[in-house]
């Protein structure tokens, strides 16, 4: 049950494209996440796949068959909504049985499938309850059970966990993932939460500004972000993006204070360098040796998150072990100690300088010095 998106586009009013040129191949049995900030068009894309809104351009193939203009019920898929879309007047069993009844399945088969689905989501004791008598997590399971009962292998999910509290959300992530594997479902999962996407998905599509930014496995997305948007969207705390200018042959000066040696020639004058907070080393310093100053201090338990200001005024986020204690106003010396992502002026990734090792495209292993 593979899904093929071929240059899909959506315009509500002529010439006003909310989505453009969206292409992807989703393998059978894959957990595919679509991630992006609100308003990026991710829900729109999901609804286009579901058939709830018409596709303006491009072609959609489901299981190798063109489905661009099929009505939703003929696309052999099911959908779980953010609001769960449960029928408040029906019991749990009847909610799960809704689609089967609409499709006029024989009663015996309906019962069997419903029982199995309810069993799978552990709601046996709640079969006869109405949705209003269930907790948020239970309602979520009913919605899942409904999708499962339909027995189709594609399931679209539109932010299904966002209405749950934080702990339950984490628990449900695992459950969802296990269920998906167990049933061999192809899941397209829309979320605005990068952690959810990272922890659950086989592949992630990052949407922003009406277009795809990157498609890849969670690791690829995290380790090789295609541009500054992807780089800063994934990872907590966020990656620092520092302005950099070329100061010498194969050397960049970040935020007017940090020097970064690079393995290849630099054809233009200005770059942006991305540094995750854990790729920066922090030391206390005396006033004359310091290149940054603490602005806020957040204790996260094992770590401390510092917001600081570089000498030239650029804000920067830093991580340090919790043993030390910092106060606002403390002076620091910040040094590079990990991967540095070099982006061009338009934000496109150029190469990666890795704690002394430089990755640029396939060309790895080039040595690079890191100056403090």
């Amino acid at each position, binding site marked *: 049950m593979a899904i093929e998106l071929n240059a899909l586009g959506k315009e509500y009013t002529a010439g006003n494209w909310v989505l453009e040129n969206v292409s992807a191949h989703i393998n059978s049995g894959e957990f595919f996440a679509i991630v992006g900030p609100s308003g990026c068009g991710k829900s729109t894309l999901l*609804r286009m796949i*579901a*058939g*709830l809104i018409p596709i303006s351009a491009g072609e959609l193939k489901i299981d190798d068959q063109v489905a661009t203009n099929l*009505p*939703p*019920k003929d*696309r052999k*898929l*099911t*959908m779980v*909504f*953010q*609001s769960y*879309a449960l*029928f*408040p*007047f*029906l019991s749990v069993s009847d909610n799960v049985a*809704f*689609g089967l009844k*609409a*499709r006029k399945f024989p009663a015996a088969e309906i019962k069997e499938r419903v029982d199995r689905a309810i069993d799978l989501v552990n709601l046996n004791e709640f079969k006869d309850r*109405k949705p*209003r008598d269930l907790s948020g997590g239970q309602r979520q399971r009913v919605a899942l059970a*409904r999708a499962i009962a*339909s027995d189709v292998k594609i399931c679209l999910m539109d932010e299904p966990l966002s209405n749950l509290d934080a702990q339950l959300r984490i628990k449900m992530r695992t459950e969802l993932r296990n269920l998906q594997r167990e049933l061999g479902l192809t899941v397209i999962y829309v979320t605005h939460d990068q952690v959810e996407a990272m922890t659950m998905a086989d592949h992630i599509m990052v949407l922003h500004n009406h277009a795809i930014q990157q498609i890849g496995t969670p690791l690829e997305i995290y380790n090789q972000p295609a541009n500054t948007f992807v780089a800063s969207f994934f990872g907590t705390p966020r990656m620092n993006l520092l302005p950099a200018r070329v100061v010498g042959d194969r050397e960049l000066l970040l935020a007017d204070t940090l020097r970064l040696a690079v393995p290849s020639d630099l054809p233009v004058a200005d770059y942006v360098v991305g540094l995750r907070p854990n790729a920066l080393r922090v030391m206390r310093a005396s006033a004359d040796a310091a290149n940054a100053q603490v602005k806020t201090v957040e204790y996260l338990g094992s770590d401390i998150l510092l917001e600081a200001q570089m000498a030239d005024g650029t804000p920067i986020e830093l991580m340090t072990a919790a043993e030390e204690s910092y106060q606002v106003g403390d002076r620091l010396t910040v040094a590079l100690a990990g991967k540095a992502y070099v982006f061009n002026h338009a934000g496109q990734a150029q190469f990666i300088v890795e704690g002394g090792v430089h990755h640029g495209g396939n060309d790895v292993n080039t040595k690079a010095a890191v100056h403090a």
Partner: protein
Amino acid sequence: MAEMMSTPKPQSTPKPQVAEREKQRSFNLHVNDKYYALAFLGPSLLVLGVFVFYPMLRTLYLSLFLTNNVGRPTVFVGLKNYVNLLTSSAYQASLQATAVYVIGVVVCTLVIGLLLAQMAVRKLAGIQWFRTIFSATMGVSVSVAAIFWLFIFSPSVGLFDQIGKLLHLPLVQWLTTPGPAMVAVIISTVWMNLGFTFLILFGALQMVPQPLYEASAIEGASPRYQFFHVTLPMISPTLFFTSTVTLIGAFKSFGLIDLMTAGGPNNATNLMVYQVYRDAFLNGNYGLASAESVILAVIIALFTLLQFKFLEKRVTY
């Protein structure tokens, strides 16, 4: 928090005197509460008593008497007024006419109102205009509506007859033939009701969450199936409300009847309320009219109760 919510249980049984005093105190408090309740409720009770309870009891009382030419109860006849009424063929005819009218009005109002609302809920160009039109009858007074419909049903100059003439249909004397007259008053009443019903049902339809339709569309439900298995159950509380309101309203219809047919022809539209009016205000027969009022009130109460008993169970979720 949990401590505050649970009632603290006494550790040990208090001594008898203490318990007695406690009891006394709580009793005093109780009595005071009663006074307070009376003081606050007094004015509204007074108003209710004077304008609601007294007239109700008085009606009940009058219904057991014959009344003389100045409306005073003179001869106690027990339930004879009721017996006479219920055995009179004219009153039975009135009951029957009322039943036909009420059922016709309630069913037509709900069905047409729902149809209009369903149409208006779609997002089409210029739909706002239709919504205004559909709800417009809410602002029309009974007398204006009566004149409007009298004109439409009028023989020789009426709209229906003009259309009939064009189509070479036989002339229908709408308001002077019993069957068509009933149809005519039902149509007019339904028309009057539509504005309100439309607006309420339209509001209810708009409140149905869109994902329910999307989910059911994906699950394979046709629009027809959606209407009966999603829309109707979702708006059933509102349907229940409007049906009750329309039913009670239909039982109490007076203005249109009085202005259009005055109970005629041949008493075909002589509804129960109209009979009350005739007996009380034309014939000056307050005893009989009171008995009729009581019967009407009982019937309305019964129907409302039945509706609550049977329908309410199905509509709450």
